[in-house]
């Protein structure tokens, strides 16, 4: 039981940054934009999250600014892929490279070269009264940091937004068939800009949560591939926010199990344990997830003078 509770708690914690980033990506993907630069966007979020949290003394303000940083980067990304209609994958790769360099440079310019990592006030665990006392799930589910609750709330919220609001409908239409949307009088570009900005906020905030929630400091390249995993999570979760949650948890669980097995002194070489989440994903994908259908216009630039 304790093991289960532990696994669940670790799972949720490790899954949270991936989940938040993936939910952000979901916004973009739904409108037909693929952002492989998620990794870099998150990295910007980690840095500016710490920067502003230090400045203000509040992790929440840090998180907010991490999101806003994401949006600034998102604006730049949107300009290149929406206005200039550039290839989204190369742009994303460029973004990753820039992010790696820029955050390290800024880190050194601002915080100097020291062995004390730039740290900041981090999030505290906020147990929810009563609920956190439920056996097994109580401690893991209701004894977490604020942003984790928010992330979990976002899951149904985004689903609701996509399915039940006018804006959500527009985003889906633009991602599926931009020309239909265009002839229906929807400004495809604006919708994509909007989705990228909203999504980038979440991606940036995901970075912020990594540096302020999971940890409370910035260190170079600390995202460590979680941005790529978030991309996989979208596909794995079949472009549906509940699916995304489930997929993020699978990854988190892979991590949790792997850590647990090492602590328990498993004799399996640790590299195999590290591979576990990835192998699990491939198996799951081949076994029961099957063909996932992306939004039809995914990754394709749109021009409205074609008919």
């Amino acid at each position, binding site marked *: 039981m304790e093991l289960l509770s532990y696994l669940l708690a670790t799972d949720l914690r490790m899954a949270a940054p991936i989940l938040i980033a993936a939910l952000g990506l979901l916004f973009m993907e739904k409108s037909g934009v693929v952002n492989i630069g998620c990794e870099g966007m998150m990295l910007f979020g980690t840095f500016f999250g710490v920067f502003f949290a230090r400045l203000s003394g509040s992790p929440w303000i840090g998180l907010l600014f991490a999101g806003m940083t994401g949006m600034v980067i998102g604006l730049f990304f949107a300009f290149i892929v929406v206005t200039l209609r550039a290839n989204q994958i190369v742009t994303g790769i460029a973004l990753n490279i820039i992010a790696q360099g820029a955050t390290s440079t800024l880190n050194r310019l601002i915080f100097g070269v020291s062995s004390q990592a730039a740290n900041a006030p981090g999030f505290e665990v906020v147990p929810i009264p009563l609920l956190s006392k439920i056996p097994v799930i109580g401690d893991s589910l209701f004894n977490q940091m604020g942003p984790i609750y928010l992330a979990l709330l976002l899951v149904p919220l985004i689903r609701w937004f996509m399915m039940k609001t006018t804006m959500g409908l*527009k985003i889906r239409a633009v991602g599926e068939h931009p020309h239909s949307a265009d002839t229906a009088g929807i400004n495809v570009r604006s919708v994509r800009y909007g989705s990228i900005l909203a999504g980038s906020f979440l991606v940036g905030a995901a970075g912020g949560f990594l540096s302020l929630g999971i940890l409370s400091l910035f260190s170079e390249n600390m995202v460590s591939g979680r941005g790529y995993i978030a991309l996989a999570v979208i596909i794995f979760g079949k472009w549906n926010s509940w699916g995304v949650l489930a997929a993020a948890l699978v990854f988190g669980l892979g991590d949790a199990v792997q850590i647990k097995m090492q602590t328990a002194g498993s004799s399996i070489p640790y590299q195999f344990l590290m591979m576990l989440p990835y192998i699990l994903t491939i198996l799951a994908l081949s076994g029961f997830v099957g063909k996932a259908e992306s939004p*039809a216009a995914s990754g394709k630039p749109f021009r409205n*003078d074609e008919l």
Partner: protein
Amino acid sequence: MDTYETVLEMRGITKVFPGVVANDAINFDLRKGEVHALLGENGAGKSTLMGILSGVYQPTEGSIVLEGAPVRFDSARDAIHNGIGMVYQHFMLVPKLTVAENIMLGIKRPKEPLLQIDKASEQIVAFARTYGMDLDPEQKVASLTVGQQQRVEIVKALFRGAKILVLDEPTAVLTPKEIQELFSMIKMLTDQNFSVIFISHKIDEVIEISNRISVLRRGKLEATINNEGVSKEELAGLMVGRDVSFCVEKTPCCPGDSVLALEGVGLKDREGRPLLKDVNFEVHEGEIFGVAGVDGNGQDELLEVITGLRSASEGSVCIVGQEVLGKSPRQILEMGLAHIPADRQARGLVLSMDIKENFIINDYYRSPHSKRDIISWPFVRKHTKENIERFDVRTSSIDTPVSTLSGGNQQKLILARELHGKPVLLAAMHATRGLDVGAIEYVHQRILEQRAAGTAVLYISTELEELMSFSDRIAVMFRGEIMGIVRPEEVTIDQIGLMMAGSIT
């Protein structure tokens, strides 16, 4: 009706694309409550003119006057807000969304961030009813028939308050029954003072439905005439600038041996619903065997089974006595099958590749097209050039991507590819869909030549008139079953129409 109220005027519209003058100083006007038909060959400039009206293109020159006031449409949005409702040649619906969602897209209802899909669905259903249409708002558009999709398009336009409805080649994909339904809807609309612009290549329809007719040729307006006593030939002449013959001149059929034989062919979908049920027929040498039916009644599946793209669950399909079931598409092609698919762009061509590359798609792997896995491009070029010329595919070079060819030329390319090598069996579907009269005439002639040369032709179409004048025998399909096989001389179009709707002769 002597005092007409003009609702729309397009004055001196010129649209220049790089290298092409698509519209050349066109004057066009539309009156309240009228159907104004726009007639013209492929590439005459009809869609472009309407693109300008709907805000998709901006004219190089000229102006639009709407109800007396000059307007400027910078986007589709502007046009929609000014009451222009456009139903595009290729529908602009989002397949994965429901009917209601599609209709609600882009409706301007400020201060309503929530969809309230149920309320809207009710409104949509009620609204559609007032125009005599039934819609299921919850269905996904992808699962609708083309006719239904078109209705959704029309409702979508009207629901958004369109006063002027533009229908770009609306009948190309409809059954006779659906066409009649569309026409009665158009009449209902014009009675209520809506104005309709109706685009078509089909002269009969134009004569049937419109009040006035404008004919475009090569970007220029040839004439705008009242639809009183104009003859078909006259219009056709205006359209193509020469005389056109409408009767398919056909030598009597002298069928030879059986080439294609289907026996008890059945096919089920994943859920076990029948797509094809006990299909039996034979097609002989030198015979054109037509298959009529409303789209989606098993014709696609029939063609797929014959071409090997799908495997039937029961029965047998033989080509010249050899069983086809279980064979790969390539093996079947090698048995002498020529295939003109229903959607030339989706299944026939590779638009981004060039003409020669498209031309060899069936033969590229065998001598003399390639030797030991290496394609001999010099041969391919020569071979393609010869046949392109023979089949009159108009292009500047065989190295241009097929996407730059007009629809008619794309179809000719497919004909050239499929027919240059004397096939034993030609299986064609919608071979003339979307083509202008000149091109249709051409396609028919080529197929007749094949017939004369002894090829067995399976010709699937939704165009009843075409089938009646063109085929030697006609099978009518309904829900995956053959309702009967008839000779065109012995039945009327109406009888076939009834069979298409499920009644047995």
